[in-house]
């Protein structure tokens, strides 16, 4: 982190280069998990853990890996970490494991893992890679929670499963509703981040 400050990692991960709304990576698991706040939070936490652990391992090995093999190594580590997380969820939080289903392992093969672990961690020190992965994971989680809040509140009239009111927009509970919400949020982020995105692409 010789040139970039912690604040720059935070603003980049959460706003200017948000993985979900600006870079548009990890869409498939996110769109599924964004249906309710609880699944969005669960997937977000699992993603943060996976990104941080994988980025740490890859950044420690980066002097021995090439660009091509680095991406593959990141995939292997992420698969191992996600399998472990899924097994622990099945053992201790079965309802969460069932709710996330097949979409949790999908994080390993999604663009978010390749971006933070297969590319960035391969070229940076362990501390930088871990901080960047953590901030990116938090940004991903925050974006999912924002979409999930809109979908659960107006689609089901509830927050974290607690019913608040009757009468809701059924479309928001469907995948199409998820795409619309995410598209609107992406437009908002684009408006905020605008041209600054270019400088953070690498």
């Amino acid at each position, binding site marked *: 982190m010789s040139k970039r400050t912690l604040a720059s990692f935070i603003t980049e991960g959460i706003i200017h280069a948000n993985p979900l709304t600006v870079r548009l990576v990890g869409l498939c698991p996110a769109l599924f998990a964004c249906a309710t706040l609880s699944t969005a939070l669960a997937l977000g936490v699992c993603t943060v853990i996976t990104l941080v652990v994988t980025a740490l391992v890859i950044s420690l090995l980066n002097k021995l890996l090439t660009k091509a093999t680095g991406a593959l*190594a990141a995939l292997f580590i992420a698969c191992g970490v996600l399998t472990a997380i899924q097994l622990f969820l099945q053992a201790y939080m079965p309802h969460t494991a069932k709710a996330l*289903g097949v979409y949790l392992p999908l994080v390993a093969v999604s663009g978010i893992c390749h971006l933070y672990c297969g590319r960035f961690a391969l070229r940076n020190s362990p501390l930088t890679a871990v901080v960047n992965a953590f901030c990116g994971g938090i940004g991903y989680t925050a974006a999912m929670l924002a979409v999930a809040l809109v979908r659960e509140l107006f689609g089901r009239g509830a927050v974290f499963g607690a019913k608040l009111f009757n009468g809701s927009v059924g479309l928001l509970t469907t995948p199409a509703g998820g795409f619309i919400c995410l598209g609107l949020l992406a437009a908002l982020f684009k408006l905020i981040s605008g041209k600054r995105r270019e400088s953070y692409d690498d």
Partner: protein
Amino acid sequence: MYDNTESKRPALAIPVTVLALVVGLLIAALAGAATAGRISAREKQRLDDAISLAFNGNDGYTDITADCPVKGVTAVYRVKSGTGGEDGLCVLSVSSSRGCTVKLLTAFSHDGMIASVHLLEAEGTPYNADELIEESGILAEFGGVLYNTAVVSVKGINGAEGCSTAVVRGVNSACAAVSCLLDTEESSEEVAE
């Protein structure tokens, strides 16, 4: 500035990648070993709860799956009656259709009549298949049906037609297993006489 754009030791790249694969497998294996006991205990508890739901106040059960292996049937249990009545049968089956996979527990009375059908798990599409199946009331349609009456059609579930077919297939598999068991028992009794 720390910037490793290419490996300093490219010859080691492939062995290190293989090492990453081994580490990944090791992480998964360790997690599997740490959670195996808890997961199997949970599965056992779920089975006990499901059997108790079908046969309230039962006095335990024995696994008789090996007596009559039938495709789609994962387990068959003879449930001892806790009230001194006739024993019953519980059949676990897994079936799927058009992306919807259901795991059912079908309870039979001693004479082979379906007492009740319980949904243990539903996976695949639609994502809320379990809710749709429970709300549709399709499982109650099988009550009172005899094991030798193959069920071919029931009122389909709106928005989850694949699940309707999967449920029918699951119940028919359970009926086939019970049919095989009762026929075997009858033959044994005749030989004994």
